C-alpha cells in the first residue's frame, strides 16, 4: 500500500551546496538560525503579533531571506489564494498558504436552505467538477430520506459525472502547462471542455453550474440532442487530448521540470490527506469508486490506475490515464444504460427523519464527501463538505522547501486545486 521512501531533505542539500560554493568564492558562511521576526508589514499587511508557533516560524527571517506574497491577485494561483513564500534568492524556504479570499460560507448557506435547494449552493464550490459536488449531497440526502434513485437515473448520474471528470482532467493538463509557460495546451483543453459543457448544457440546461441532480434522481432524462453531441464528441475526443499530450508528454523541457519534482511518498500523501489522482500517482490504489463503491460503479469494469513516481510528472500521467479511463467508462455506461424513470417518488413534504448520513464520491481532485445531519426540519441541521483540494494544499509547504519559485507553480498545478472548493 505505501512505500516508505527516504527522501533527502532538499533544504539540507541546498544548504550544503550553497556552503560549498560560498567557501569556493571565499565568502563567509551565511548565518543560520536565530533570525528575527519580520512581522506582517513585510507582506504589506497591518502588523500584529504572530498567533501561532507556525506563524512565527514563517515570518521569522534569517539572513538573506525575504517574504514574497504570491497572490491574491497573481497570474497562476488558480483563483484567489495567497502564498506567503519565504525565499532565499530564488530558493523557497517555506510556504504558508493563506486562504479565505473566496470564502462564501456555503456550508452555512446550505444549513439554511431546504434539501432541494442545497443542490444549487454546492455547484459553485469546486466549479470545475460541479456534477461531483451535487452527487455527494444527492447520495447523502437519499440515505436520509430512505429512497433510492431509479437505475436509469444512476446511469445518467455516472455518465455526467464521468464527462465532468474528463474535462476537469483535461483542463489540469492545460493549466499545468500554462503555469510552466506553455501557452498552447490550455487552449486545446478548452476545445474539449467546450464540447463537454455544451453537451452537459444540452442535458441540464446550464454550462457550468448544472443544478442537475435531484434527491432521488436527476432533473432530466437524456435527449436526442445530448446523445448526438455525445457521439460527435466521443469520435473526436481522443484526438483533442492527444494534441496536448504530443506537446507535453515527451517534451524534454516539460520532463526536465516535472520528473523528480515535488515527490510525495505514499505514506506522506496519506498522512497529509491527499486524495484522488495525486494520491494514486504516489502509488496508493485508493479510489472511492472502488474502495467504497457508490452509484453504479460496482457494475462497471475498470481498474484503479496508479503511478510509482509520486512526482509532478506522475501526477500529470495519472490524470491523462484517468481521463482515458473515464472515456472508456462512458462507453460502458452508454452501452449498459437501462430504460425507465429518472426520478424516484419523493414525498411531497421534504422532511427526512432525524438522522445522519455520510456520502463520499471520487471527484477529479479526490475524495469529496458530505456529512449531513437532519433534525427532522425542512433544512439540514448540519451540512459539512470535505473538499479534496482544500486538504491537498497542505502538501505544498511540505514539498517546496529547497525548490525554486518557478517550481511552486508547477507543484501547485499538479495538485489541481480549485479555489472555489478550497474556500467553500
Amino acid at each position, binding site marked *: *500500500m505505501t512505500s516508505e521512501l527516504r527522501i533527502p531533505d532538499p533544504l539540507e542539500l541546498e544548504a550544503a551546496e550553497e556552503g560549498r560554493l560560498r567557501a569556493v568564492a571565499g565568502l563567509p558562511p551565511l548565518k543560520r538560525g536565530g533570525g528575527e521576526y519580520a512581522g506582517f508589514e513585510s507582506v504589506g499587511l497591518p502588523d*500584529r503579533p504572530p*498567533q*501561532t*508557533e*507556525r*506563524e512565527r516560524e514563517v515570518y521569522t527571517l534569517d539572513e538573506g531571506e525575504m517574504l514574497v506574497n504570491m497572490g491574491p491577485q497573481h497570474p497562476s494561483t488558480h483563483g484567489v489564494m495567497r502564498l506567503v513564500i519565504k525565499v532565499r534568492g530564488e530558493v523557497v524556504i517555506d510556504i504558508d498558504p493563506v*486562504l*479565505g479570499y473566496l*470564502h462564501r*460560507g456555503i*456550508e*452555512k448557506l446550505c*444549513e*439554511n436552505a431546504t434539501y432541494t435547494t442545497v443542490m444549487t449552493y454546492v455547484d459553485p464550490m469546486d466549479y470545475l467538477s460541479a456534477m461531483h459536488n451535487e452527487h455527494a449531497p444527492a447520495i447523502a440526502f437519499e*440515505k436520509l430520506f430512505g429512497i433510492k434513485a431509479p437505475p436509469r437515473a444512476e446511469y445518467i448520474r455516472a455518465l455526467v459525472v464521468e464527462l465532468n471528470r474528463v474535462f476537469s482532467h483535461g483542463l489540469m493538463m492545460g493549466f499545468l502547462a500554462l503555469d510552466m509557460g506553455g501557452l498552447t495546451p490550455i487552449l486545446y483543453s478548452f476545445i474539449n471542455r467546450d464540447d463537454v459543457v455544451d453537451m452537459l448544457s444540452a442535458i441540464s440546461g446550464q454550462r457550468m453550474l448544472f443544478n442537475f441532480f435531484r434527491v432521488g434522481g436527476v432533473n432530466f432524462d437524456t435527449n436526442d440532442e445530448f446523445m448526438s453531441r455525445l457521439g460527435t464528441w466521443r469520435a473526436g475526443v481522443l484526438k483533442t487530448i492527444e494534441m496536448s499530450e504530443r506537446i507535453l508528454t515527451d517534451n524534454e523541457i516539460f520532463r526536465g521540470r516535472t520528473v523528480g519534482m515535488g515527490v510525495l511518498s505514499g505514506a506522506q500523501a*496519506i*498522512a*497529509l*490527506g*491527499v486524495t484522488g489522482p495525486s494520491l494514486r500517482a504516489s502509488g496508493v490504489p*485508493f479510489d472511492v469508486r472502488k*474502495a*467504497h463503491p457508490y452509484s453504479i460503479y460496482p457494475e462497471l469494469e475498470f481498474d484503479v490506475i496508479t503511478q510509482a513516481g509520486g512526482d509532478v510528472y506522475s501526477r500529470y500521467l495519472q490524470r491523462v490515464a484517468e481521463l482515458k479511463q473515464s472515456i472508456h467508462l462512458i462507453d460502458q455506461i452508454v452501452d449498459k444504460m437501462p430504460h425507465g424513470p429518472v426520478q424516484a417518488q419523493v414525498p411531497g413534504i421534504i422532511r427526512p427523519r*432525524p*438522522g*445522519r*448520513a*455520510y456520502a*463520499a464520491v471520487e471527484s477529479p481532485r479526490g*475524495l469529496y*464527501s458530505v*456529512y449531513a*445531519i437532519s*433534525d*427532522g*426540519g425542512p433544512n439540514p*441541521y*448540519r451540512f*459539512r463538505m*470535505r473538499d479534496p483540494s*482544500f*486538504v491537498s*494544499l*497542505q502538501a505544498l509547504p*511540505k514539498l517546496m522547501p529547497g525548490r525554486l519559485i518557478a517550481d511552486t507553480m508547477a507543484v501547485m498545478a499538479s495538485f489541481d486545486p480549485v479555489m472555489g472548493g478550497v*474556500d*467553500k
Partner: protein
Amino acid sequence: MADVRRPRPTAEQLGRRRTLSAPAKAGALVRLLLDRFPGLASTIWTDDDTVEVQIDGAGNVALLGDLRDDPELHFWFLADAAAVDYGVGERFEVVYHLYSDLHPAWLRVRARVDRADPHIPTITGLWEGANFHEREMYDMMGILFDGNRDLRRIFMSPDYRSFPQRRDFLLPDDAADSQAAGVNPLERPETWDLTRLEESRAPGVMAGAGDEP
C-alpha cells in the same frame, strides 16, 4: 442564520439511537469493535454503510491511534473531520470519518466536546492532514485543539472575533450586540410589538369595517 423562531431539537432527540440489526456489510466490523473496545458497546450505531461510535473528546487520540494501528482494524485513512454544534447549553461534537480497506464501511467517531469550554486534543500527530480541518473547525466553531501548533483562522480574517457556524451566531456578525444593525426590523421578531399589531388590523378581513350594511 440560525432560525431563531423554530425551536431546535435537543441533543437527545438528535442523537437518539436506532437499534438496528447490523447489516451484513458492517457486521464483522461491529463485532470487531465490540471485541476491541467493550467500553464503546453502548454507543455503537450502524446504518447500511457506516458504523458509528461515540466517545468523550479527551479520548480521541488514543482511540483513533488504536483504530489506525490495529492490524485487523487498520483504519489508515482519515476521510473527514468536522464539527457539529448542538446548540446553546448543549455540546459540540468533532466527527471523524475513517476508511479502512479491510472493512466495507465508513467508521464514524463522534467525540463530545464541552460547549462552554471547548477543548479537545489534536490528532495532527496521527494524520498531519488533519491540520486544515482543525483550523477550519476552530475558525467556524471555535473549538480549541490542544497541541496543534498552527491553530489560527483559515477562512476568516485574523482579526475576526466570532465563530460563524455556531448555532447562536446571527447574521450579520454583530446583530447580537446592536438592536438592528443591518437587519431588517421586520425580520427581527423580538422587536415586534404584538399589542400594536392588534390595532393595525388589515381591512376587509374584519366584516363591517366598510360603509356597507
